């Protein structure tokens, strides 16, 4: 009987060894696979139960996790929800994230690779895991000024520091309240989300970087002028024929200069005057002479058609291939199929303001671990140098004249040289897309700005320029 008992004992031992092995396989070797399974709600709970890091503006939290008494432990709250919605985006339990909340989710939730050791530490020491805090480049004064100045208009204001690329203001209107989507009741979140989604004002769009692209109108003349001067083919004094109307080649359509129309009234007009008065006909001729290759190359150097993340993805602005000379002529002053984001327009101004060096725009000043060690320090990256310093100086002079004595007169600030350019893109209907872009002070730029007002009445100079002026004033008078 003992022999049989020994065998049975061995079988029992094998049975238990099988259990030890199977539980080891699950708890050690399959852990990663099981954790990432989409049906594993524990992973979901864990990511919300960790104290998500705050998003800071000038040291103050615009988004932070506050303790609540439910299974998720923390509720994401936004202290100034509408004002910063274009920057923070929203954070939901299981309906996705957007903005900085989405783009830096790994850091905020503490799951980024850079935080691995910290997470391990807190596991061992039994502390609750925490996410990193993200300090933004946003200047609360500039942001508030942009928000107030845009008023009830649908549109966007983007302001950058041309020397660093730091985005100091980013406003998109209509805005939304991300608190509505942070609630812990999924049904409510979906209801609120659908309400926002079906809102005709489309508040969930971030018009500054990722809305529908806009026709740039005359602000694109900055790119055309930059190409003309930087390529060495033209100077501000280069003369162009100045007819009141111009028939487009192989077309019955004619173009004319906006508003007063005669562009100085002389038989010819120089490039400086054409930019100062924002005349379409000389720029159409200029673009046709430069050719599509040159023009699209400069557009690309300024950032057109290039992917960019600030850290949320920016929709690339486009300068598509033209199919005829007529189309190229229209594109040269920002019509036809040229489409831009306000950030791209601000980048053109910023490159000119910074002596031709285009800094990579970013919203992130720094990322800090919960123990305040810096995970990502401030970064200044030269994205490209689309034009020479000499070209930049020349273009600055032309843009200052444009404000002091030309089409962008409403951006004038006494005692400060403001460089600027307006735009009024014609849409199919009666309403126009109104633009202003520029920087100040011209001799030592602190801010480059782009303003767009959707479907506005009037001109860039009458609507967009005063908005930009208020933002510039707010920053310069700090």
């Amino acid at each position: 009987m003992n022999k049989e008992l020994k065998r049975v004992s061995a079988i029992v031992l094998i049975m238990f060894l099988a259990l030890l092995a199977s539980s080891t396989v699950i708890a050690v070797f399959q852990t990663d696979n099981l954790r990432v399974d989409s049906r594993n709600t524990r992973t979901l709970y864990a990511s919300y139960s960790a104290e998500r890091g705050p998003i800071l503006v000038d040291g103050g939290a615009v988004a932070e996790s506050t303790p609540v008494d439910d299974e998720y432990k923390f509720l994401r709250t936004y202290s100034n929800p509408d004002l910063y919605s274009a920057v923070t985006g929203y954070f939901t339990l299981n309906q996705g994230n957007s903005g900085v909340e989405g783009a830096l989710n790994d850091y905020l939730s503490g799951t980024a690779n850079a935080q691995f050791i910290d997470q391990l530490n807190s596991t061992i020491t039994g502390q609750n895991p925490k996410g990193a805090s993200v300090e933004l480049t946003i200047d609360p004064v500039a942001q508030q000024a942009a928000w107030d100045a845009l008023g009830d208009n649908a549109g966007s204001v983007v302001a950058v520091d041309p020397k660093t690329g730091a985005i100091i203001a980013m406003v998109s209107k209509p805005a939304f309240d991300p608190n509505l989507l942070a609630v812990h009741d999924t049904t409510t979140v979906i209801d609120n989300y659908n309400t926002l989604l079906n809102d005709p004002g489309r508040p969930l769009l971030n018009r500054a970087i990722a809305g529908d692209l806009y026709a740039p109108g005359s602000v694109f003349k900055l790119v055309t002028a930059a190409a003309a001067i930087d390529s060495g083919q033209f100077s501000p004094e280069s003369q162009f024929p100045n007819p009141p109307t111009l028939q487009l080649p192989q077309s019955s359509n004619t173009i004319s200069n906006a508003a007063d129309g005669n562009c100085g009234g002389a038989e010819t007009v120089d490039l400086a005057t054409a930019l100062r008065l924002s005349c379409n006909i000389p720029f159409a001729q200029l673009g046709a002479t430069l050719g599509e290759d040159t023009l699209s190359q400069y557009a690309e150097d300024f950032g057109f058609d290039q992917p960019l993340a600030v850290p949320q993805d920016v929709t690339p602005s486009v300068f598509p291939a033209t199919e005829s000379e007529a189309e190229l002529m229209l594109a040269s002053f920002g019509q036809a199929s040229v489409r831009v984001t306000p950030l791209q327009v601000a980048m053109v101004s910023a490159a000119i303001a910074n002596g031709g060096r285009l800094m990579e725009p970013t919203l992130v000043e720094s990322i800090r671990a919960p123990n305040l060690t810096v995970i990502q320090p401030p970064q200044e990256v030269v994205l490209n140098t689309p034009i020479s310093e000499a070209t930049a100086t020349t273009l600055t002079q032309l843009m200052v004249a444009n404000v002091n004595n030309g089409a962008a007169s409403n951006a004038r600030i006494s005692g400060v040289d403001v460089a600027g350019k307006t735009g009024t893109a014609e849409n199919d209907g009666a309403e126009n897309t109104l633009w202003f872009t520029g920087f100040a002070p011209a001799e030592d730029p602190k801010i480059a700005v782009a303003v767009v007002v959707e479907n506005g009445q009037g001109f860039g100079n009458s609507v967009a320029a005063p908005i930009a002026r208020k933002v510039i004033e707010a920053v310069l008078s700090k």
Partner: protein
Amino acid sequence: MSATNQGPGATVSESGQRNTNTITDTIRIRLREPARLRNLELLLLVFAIIINAAAILLVQLGALGEVRKEVFTYSAALAVLALAMHVTLRIAASQADPFILPIATVLNGIGIAMIYRLDLAGGREGWAASGIRQMAWTAIAMLAAFIVLVVIRNHRVLQRYRYIAMFVGIALLLLPLVPGLGREINGSQVWIGIGPQRADGSVPLSFQPGELAKIALAVFFAGYLVTARDSLSLVGKKFLGMRLPRVRDLGPILIIWVAAMGVLVLQRDLGTSLLYFGLFLVMIYVATGRISWVILGMTLFIGGAVAASQLLGYVNSRFNGWLDAFDNAIYEQIGGSYQLVQGLFGIADGGLVGTGLGQGSPDMVPFAESDFIIASLGEELGLAGLFALLCLFLLFVSRGFRIGFAGQDDFGRLLGTGLAFVIALQVFIVIGGITRVIPLTGLTTPFMAAGGSSLVANWIIAALLLRLSDTVRNQPRLVVDA
């Protein structure tokens, strides 16, 4: 060959024992210092009580962040019951194995801590709380164990009642099929309910008689095999190197096979069916030493199970849920692998050291306090905790097997082996099902899972093992010593 020696030798040793009883006993009492065993037990029991209290305290700190009065009521109740058992053993079975009671106590206590932890997660209080009911059942189960120890002073009386045990076992198995008494819970007809049925289908008192049946059947198998083993083991034709049993000796194995299949088909309970049949096979193997019985039995059972998996929808879905647990169609299907996969997520989340008691989310798994308590414990105590629990179970089983090795009478040896093996097999079926070694079946983890019938049955097993181990040490080892 020792097995055959002891059969005819039994009468000799019994009469010899009567002659030398008084002298040997006095010598042994001096030599063995019986208090030593009980003192060791007391020491281990104090450890067990401390572990149990610490577990409940950690549950409160982890889940609530504060200490409540339950930490005292639960711990004190468990301690009083365990110490009462200890005192009983000092009086009624002073030579009993010192490990069995502490192991059963700590397993029971950790089970209660986890059930209490799930009560906190579910917001259940008073009699609605499974923890309170488990505590009450623990008291009833320990009382049953106490009665077994006091009433059964000599386990050999059980041998006389082997056929009664068979009828009781079969009756208990069939009880859930009696109309008006049986209750179908979670698809299995293995429960009986007593008292008026409530609106939600539950009854004041429900019981799984099959849990008790395993004891009755172990008693029957041991008694029957001790008398019948000669004809089972020595007679029969040799074929392919194996001695096949005679056709007329096939009767019992066929009856048990039919009973196991009956449980499988009529009560839709694969786990219980496997448990009884496995118990029978091991006991017949240990008694006869003939591997042909095991091969024959396994062929019959696997054949039956495969046929059932083809014919019965629920067995088939158990197999699919085992093999393709992560297939989304099977995961979503009713009776599919949702529970299994959620349990795996829990264990994986626990990792090596677990989330800590009260700090995981074991309540996401259906039946986290009963069928899946091991997944809950794996999540919060981690792989380390599971290993510790498995080692405790293994130690418990090995104490039972020790009776098999060291006992003098074959009935006691077989019974001890059978009772220990039934615990081992049940642990294997439950944890193996949860960790995907075998298909998932609805059995309870001994001593731990919420459920009164299981607790009562396992504490009675513990009491019988205590009684058997006491007899082993008390008996003069005439045969062996000589």
